């Protein structure tokens, strides 16, 4: 999977060279290193180097109580803060076998969809910026601003709501503000429609983005790609529909897909999802039920739980193991970008360098979500830290732990290694 620079060059590939993108690069919002092996202008291999912003949050979470952890997990990612805290709550509720009260589920839906709206608008703006089309950047971010203001006026903070709680929500939304929030949504609806039409009709964007970074449905399945990146290749996967949490099962909305699989399709899927999110938000505002906010969970028994959540970037998975104390014994976060980043192996090979930059950004990768491990290169042992090595290492460890625990065979991966 990885192509190291020290490998002997293949015959006939004397004109190969390596282009570094990152760890600090205008294209990247976060530090991550990409190593493109190119033949002339054509990329023949991609590798990523991570662990620049490892924060050790999983370890910290194992030293915090169940009430504190959602607040800590909001800090995993700058954009999907609701995602990680609600996903953790889903995991613990799975362990407990309970479902939060209706009002709590609707409040989670509202903050989750507001987050999706501002995250997708952020991506559309950034995508415009990456291809040098700063008008799109300015307009999309202009529309994002009122959404962040609504988020603040409902929860008290622009990003970190501090609302999710195991078994419900911690506080009520500021319901006095809901009519104003609805007015902002009405305004946003027209603006998003205008932005969608402008992007769909724009000949420059079409010429730049159509046919770039194509992922076929087969590759999507092979790499386990999730979220809008998979839906843009015609694979209709959405946790909100497949395994409904919060109030999604009771609301009327659609999973947006596009058949093409290129960057343009990814932009279209995200823009159309904005309209769906606004639809969900309006329904949730209308139907917001009364009742309790929380189940008042006082004790988490020993056991295991898995939480799923459709983040703006795809399916987020949290695993929690409790030993009956007030702190979890283990918390594992599998962020959506973890699988999406691996798909660069499929979408970037054979493209030109200029196309690769926008393809790397097209799955809206979030590196601080993804970095769950740190491996320092040691001069004697030569411990590698490229993505392929890390995946191989994680599979090796999984097999070892499964063997140690004597777990069922379905947990043990096939011996094929990284795909």
């Amino acid at each position, binding site marked *: 999977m990885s192509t190291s620079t020290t490998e002997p060059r293949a015959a006939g590939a004397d004109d190969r060279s390596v282009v570094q993108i990152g760890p600090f690069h205008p294209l990247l919002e976060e530090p991550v290193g990409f190593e493109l092996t190119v033949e002339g202008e054509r990329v023949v291999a991609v590798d990523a180097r991570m662990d620049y912003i490892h924060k050790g949050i999983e370890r910290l979470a194992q030293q915090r109580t169940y009430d504190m952890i959602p607040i800590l997990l909001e800090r995993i990612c700058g954009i999907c803060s609701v995602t990680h805290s609600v996903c953790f709550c889903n995991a613990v509720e799975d362990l407990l076998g309970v479902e939060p009260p209706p009002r709590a589920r609707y409040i989670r839906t509202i903050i989750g969809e507001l987050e999706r709206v501002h995250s997708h608008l952020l991506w559309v703006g950034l995508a415009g910026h990456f291809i040098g089309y700063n008008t799109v950047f300015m307009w999309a971010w202009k529309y994002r601003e009122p959404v962040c203001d609504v988020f603040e006026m409902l929860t008290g*903070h622009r990003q970190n709501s*501090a609302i999710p709680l195991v078994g419900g929500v911690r506080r009520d939304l*500021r319901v006095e503000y809901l009519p104003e929030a609805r007015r902002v949504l009405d305004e946003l609806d027209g603006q998003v429609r205008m932005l969608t039409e402008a992007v769909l009709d724009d000949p420059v964007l079409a010429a730049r983005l159509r046919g770039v970074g194509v992922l076929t449905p087969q590759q999507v399945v092979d790499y386990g790609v999730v979220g809008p990146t998979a839906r843009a290749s015609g694979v209709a996967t959405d946790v909100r529909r497949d395994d409904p949490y919060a109030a999604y099962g009771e609301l009327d909305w659609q999973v947006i897909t596009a058949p093409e699989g290129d960057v343009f399709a990814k932009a279209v899927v995200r823009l159309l999802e904005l309209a769906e999110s606004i639809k969900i938000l309006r329904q949730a505002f209308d139907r917001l039920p*009364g009742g309790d906010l929380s189940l008042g969970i006082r004790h988490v028994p020993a056991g295991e739980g898995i939480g799923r959540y459709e983040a703006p970037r795809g399916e987020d998975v949290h695993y929690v193991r409790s030993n009956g104390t007030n702190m979890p014994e283990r918390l594992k976060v599998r962020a959506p970008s973890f699988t999406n980043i691996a798909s660069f192996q499929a979408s970037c090979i054979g493209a030109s360098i200029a196309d690769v930059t926008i393809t790397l950004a097209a799955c809206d990768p979030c590196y601080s979500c993804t970095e769950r491990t740190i491996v320092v290169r040691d001069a004697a042992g030569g411990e590698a830290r490229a993505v392929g090595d890390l995946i191989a290492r994680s599979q090796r460890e999984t097999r070892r732990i499964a063997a140690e625990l004597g777990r069922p065979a379905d947990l043990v991966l096939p011996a094929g290694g990284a795909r």
Partner: protein
Amino acid sequence: MVILQRKELTLAERLYLPEILRGLSITFRKFFKKAITRQYPEEPLPKDEVTRGQPRLVVKDDGHLACVSCGLCEAACPAYAITIDGHEVDRPIEREPERFEIDMLRCILCGFCEEACPKDAIFMSDELELADLTRAELVYGIDKLKRPRSALQKRIDYVYRINDRWRNSSSTP
């Protein structure tokens, strides 16, 4: 590579000037619209009772802190930002903080301290600006944290309101 067919331009479009004027008319109209940018340091940010700013300590009308240094906020703080040392006093509340420090570099403005406090002594203010030249200056002691009750009244009313709603939540929508 995608080949796009450009659409045929009409006569008005080919004349160039009408289109330029149409574009400029949008520009001129924007002069009279309200600017969407905020000139931040000069122009204050929109704040409301719901805004969770930095935590502040309430000074009661008799001039003493409402805090009895019970340590509940210290225990609830997910960032371990609060340090309290208490001592006994002769007043009816018996204890008050000798040292109450919040490390603003650690504080994540989550509002747990406000929620944990049994004496309504700590509230999230609407103060957001946080800058100084040294780290030590950003560990706020009682001097920097105390505020008269009137300065926090809006937030206190809001917290009371949402807590009432929670208590009666099964009856009200």
